[in-house]
């Protein structure tokens, strides 16, 4: 009860509830197209949230996030289309398969640091992309697989499903960041050579973190491609992980809410432009690129970082 009354006292709780209500009502008044954008954005945000744990909290710049999105998605697709499972069974399978692959990938890759890790994960993405294209009997290659059954019937329900997943991931991230796990990840990020001397089993936590976030990403992928009912290898090219990276970085690495803002900027803003002018929409990737470069060079804390500086500035003025 104490916890709840504390919560009711904080302003941020009400803001959060307002956003929640807004998010719930919005799809009911949105056109099919807007809904599709929102579903895509929500899914991207979830993937970015998972990447954020690995990149922002743990300090490992993974460029292969989309691989796990794809593993989850293809598990959903193959389990339903080729093996006849129900989509909910496939949804249960997705995180399990993705966890295993994520853990296996973690073993070699997490031995590397910083840019070597980044490049190795990039190469990993290339290998997986090649696997997806070159096994048409298994994966349908570019032509893809059709007829993935939907988990739920309507688009709106899919959106709610994704919001639910996003909330779960958000809550888990916040809980993690405030717990011993979060401290361990930050220790790894700040000085990985020091951590073991403090008794921390760095290897175990790195691998688990990587595998668990991969599994969550896999679930997001499974849900999205069930919504889309169609999957092809075109979605998993070598550079496809960059979007998740952009969302995570732009929003602000190492903060739980960062990816949400990142998603709004990276996916949402260009769509707003599209509304204003068709030609502007041609420059969507350039917009993302510009924002990404601007953020990383000028304000590495991302949107959340800017927000914090602004709040800090006003607090200082108020204190005078």
């Amino acid at each position, binding site marked *: 009860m104490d916890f709840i009354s504390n919560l009711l006292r904080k302003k941020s709780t009400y803001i959060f509830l307002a956003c929640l209500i807004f998010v719930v009502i919005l799809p009911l008044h949105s056109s099919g197209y807007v809904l599709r954008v929102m579903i895509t954005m929500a899914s991207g945000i979830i993937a970015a949230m998972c990447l954020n744990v690995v990149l922002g909290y743990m300090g490992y710049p993974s460029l292969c996030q989309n691989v796990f999105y794809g593993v989850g998605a293809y598990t959903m697709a193959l389990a339903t289309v080729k093996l006849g499972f129900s989509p909910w069974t496939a949804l249960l399978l997705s995180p399990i398969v993705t966890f295993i692959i994520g853990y296996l990938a973690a073993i070699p890759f997490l031995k590397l640091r910083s*840019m070597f890790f980044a490049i190795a994960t990039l190469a990993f993405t290339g290998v997986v992309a*090649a696997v997806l294209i070159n096994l048409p009997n298994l994966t349908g290659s570019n032509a893809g697989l059709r007829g993935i059954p939907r988990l739920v019937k309507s688009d709106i329900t899919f959106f709610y499903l994704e919001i639910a997943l996003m909330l779960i991931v958000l809550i888990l991230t916040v809980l993690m960041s405030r717990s011993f796990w979060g401290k361990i990840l930050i220790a790894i990020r700040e000085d990985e050579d020091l951590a073991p001397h403090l008794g921390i089993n760095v290897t175990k936590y790195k691998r688990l973190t990587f595998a668990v976030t991969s599994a969550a990403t896999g679930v997001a992928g499974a849900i999205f491609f069930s919504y889309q009912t169609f999957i092809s290898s075109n979605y998993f090219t070598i550079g496809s992980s960059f979007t998740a990276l*952009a969302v995570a970085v732009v929003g602000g690495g190492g903060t739980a809410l960062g990816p949400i803002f990142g998603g709004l900027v990276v996916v949402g803003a260009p769509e707003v432009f599209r509304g204003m002018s068709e030609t502007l929409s041609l420059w969507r990737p350039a917009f993302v690129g510009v924002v990404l470069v601007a953020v990383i060079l000028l304000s590495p804390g991302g949107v959340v970082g800017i927000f914090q500086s602004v709040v800090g500035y006003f607090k200082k003025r108020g204190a005078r």
Partner: protein
Amino acid sequence: MITQVILNAVVETAIYVIMALGLTLIFGVMKIPNLTHGAMYAMGAFIHYSLIEWFGVPFVPALFIAALLTFGGGAILERVFFRKGGGSPVIAIIAGIGLTYVLVNVMTNVWGAWPLRIQTPFRHMLRIGGGAISSHNIVIIIVSIAITVLLYALLKWTKFGCAIRAVSQDREEASLIGVNVNTVGLVTFAIGTMLASIGGMFAAPITAATPTMGGTAETMGFAIIILGGMGSLGGAIIGACLLGFVDVFVTSYVSGGWGGAVAFVFMIVVILIRPSGLFGKKGRQI
């Protein structure tokens, strides 16, 4: 048949050598991986194409002009975006990714996403053994060798080359003895970018130019220089030979499409066993 495969492998290696030399040079001096390399590879092809189609410049002079333009472009990129010198490589990686987004988008909007065919004036076919090689490919090989020789000459015999080597060995020491580290970085980055675009210019008539043609090439480039040792020119050449041959042989004898993947797996294995590559820090650095 095998002669043909070998010939193809040599050509592919030649293009990769040009690309990898630029990439390893940039890393050696600035200690950052350049993730705009692939985009500039493609940009080189498109600028070259434009010079030919829009301005009527003949193929060969257009090569030189495009090279100069991309040299300038690289200089601008370094000055504006990468002048952190000693900054975290992760920042450089992310900035490079952002810039690639922009550049690829520009190329897509200006030149279109469809593959552009570029005609090369070198169209003779030469028969060697059981295979054939076009004069264009022979030019590529010659250019690749020439660039390698020029680069070695630059580094060994010119004052600026000395400066480059000094900065790549120890940036602080170099600046203490009076080397203008910023200028060295700028010019090196420009040279590297120019080399990437030269690679693209020569590759385009073979594979057709698309805005995303640099993607796999860039990752291959990294595979090569990591294999050979980042910062080592000799390593870049050997890495290019190794992976170029692996790529072409796998593509020809196993199945198309797996060449790149095998090369990547190879690189991942090497990076795990010996992160400094075959000729990395432990070996000689030019």
